[in-house]
């Protein structure tokens, strides 16, 4: 099953490679991994999207907790949570396609953030699923380039990951 694991870790050189190394050394899946500093400059927050049996997910959580640089771990999928991912898509936008692509972007509540005479760059946020659907909805041949951040997640309401 797909799990989204959030963790707080020391904002130190090498912390990211300890987490990435753990996943590769023990053969765990990484679907996506994002990391950035938090409002507390000594901490970084990482979101890892992974998949595996319950036993493997349990081991992943335990092994992450065991890393000395990892301060706190939360499996967001254990409860209510919100997941968002940002995607930028550069598409060929000429002739009739310009109108169609703009319309589709509006339907998916995206924005065109860069325009040239031949291209649009579209910004879209949502769950990974929604971003996949957008890519399916437009003409595949028009896609020049895509870039996705990978999922970030946060617990709903009182579910808070903080020191």
């Amino acid at each position, binding site marked *: 099953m797909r799990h989204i694991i959030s963790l707080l870790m020391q904002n130190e050189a090498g912390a990211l*490679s300890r987490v990435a190394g753990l996943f590769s050394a023990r053969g765990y899946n990484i679907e996506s991994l994002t990391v950035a500093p938090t409002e507390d400059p000594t901490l970084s927050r990482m979101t890892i999207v992974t998949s595996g049996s319950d036993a493997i997910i*349990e081991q992943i959580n335990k092994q992450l*907790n065991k890393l*000395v*640089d990892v*301060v*706190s771990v939360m499996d967001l999928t254990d409860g209510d949570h919100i997941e968002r991912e940002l995607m930028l898509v550069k598409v060929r936008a000429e002739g009739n396609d310009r109108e169609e692509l703009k319309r589709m972007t509006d339907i998916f509540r995206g924005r065109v953030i860069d325009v040239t005479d031949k291209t649009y760059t579209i910004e879209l946020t949502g769950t990974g699923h929604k971003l996949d659907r957008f890519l399916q909805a437009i003409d595949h041949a028009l896609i020049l380039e895509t870039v996705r951040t990978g999922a970030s997640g946060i617990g709903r309401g009182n579910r808070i990951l903080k*020191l």
Partner: protein
Amino acid sequence: MELTGAEIVIRCLQEEGTEYVFGYPGGAVLFIYDELFKQDKVKHVLVRHEQAAVHAADGYARSTDKVGVALVTSGPGVTNAVTGIATAYMDSIPLVVISGQVPTGYIGEDAFQEVDAVGITRPCVKHNFLVKDAKDIASTLKKAFYLAKSGRPGPVLVDIPKDVSTTKVAFEYPETVNIRSYHPAQSAPAEQIRQAAQLLLSAKRPMVYTGGGVVLSDASKQLAELVRLLGYPCTNTLMGLGGYPATDKQFLGMLGMHGTLEANFAMQHCDVLLAVGARFDDRVIGNVAHFAQVPRKIIHIDIDLASISKRVKVDVPLVGDVKHVLDDLLGALRASKQKPDAAALKDWWQQIESWRSKKSLAYKYSDEVIKPQFVIEKLYEITGGDAFVTSDVGQHQMWAAQYYKFDQPRRWINSGGLGTMGFGLPAAMGVQLAHPGSTVACVTGEGSIQMNIQELSTCKQFRLPIKVLALNNRYLGMVRQWQEFFHGNRYSESYMDALPDFVKLAEAYGHVGIRVTKPSDVEGAIKEAFARKNDLVFMDFQTDPTENVFPMVPGGKGLSEIIMAEDL
């Protein structure tokens, strides 16, 4: 007062009470060696290869309850140390390894003798540090010693660039250490302790299975109390030998791939299992599904949460320091009105005795050729079971584990997890330095000993009277055994051709060498060797090349699918 980084390193070691540093100098650590030279509190042991430095520090740590310390230079110094570090990591041995690094300004430029030490050791250390500022040396070393020893112990590497070792800063050694992300468990919740006690007392076919955690936690006294209080059978893993007295009648011997029939059968057929500081690894439970065929409740005491339900599902986890948890568990057992089921226990012991009566460790003595088991039996007799025994890896390791009965912890020193050939001799150096008056034997083979034989030179320099018992069967015996059983007798590259004359080799290093070819000479040779209190004696026993280690649970098989010597 301002000190250089190098001075601070030595001052920190002094503050930690470090008795010995095992190391090898080089460009990046020259300033640290200069400071070592200027003082005499911390003694340095010059090895002949960095791998041996780490193994020696490891042997020192295993045989005491202290942190072993090694010091190596950058580049090849670090890469040579990696095998030693990984060995300690797999067996949870507390080490601090200090490595030199190229100056900070050169890092990343492919400088001479540069290697990414932190990167290359990351998967085989508990934690590691690159110290980029001399101001951080003291606090980093304090953390390193604390991390190495606390919780589930392990090796910690501290990488110090050369320019950092020359920078002058104010020195103050921190008295305490606080790492906000690191809080090893001490004791388990009272409710779980109570549940565990109740489960233990309800057992019809109980079993106590203990590992290296008992030794590391110095909990053998508590373990013996608990096992005797309950009257239950006890087995030790390879790493746990000595954790429970081997000569006690409640001890069933070692379990696992080369464990006794009674230990493996009792493990398979028990209804309540108490696992203490052991991790159900593949050499103990080769086939998890087969093990699960017999329903049983499992209580698992371990300091590492990640060890719980990793391979085998656990019913009552008790996460904490083994000694602490056993104390609490003993308290709960004594407080309980319930007593063990005497009738069920009697039947269980009868069953166990019938397994034990099969004498799974019996072997055929020969007048013609030396049986390796016989050498270990004689070693046990002659040393009164009181020696520190280190071993290398292979058949000789298994025979030493099977036939030397360890009654005390920290006497059996071997590379269990990583299985590192070349471990035995350097580990014995660390043990002998830690216990200068004690008898230290290194049981090895002609294959393993050649992986760090250069350390005979270190032994000469530091006058270490280690007794080396090489079970020389002219084969990489364990490889040969598997080739015989599983590869159609095709002995691919397992014959050790062109062996050196070990007697002459020992003599060339300034030691005493004895070659033993006849069974009738074994006892005399061992007696003579151990009578030489001040000499390193290298005993080259020409043993039976066809002898195999039995019993054997083949890889991936269930515990009750054990093969005995007479089965073949």
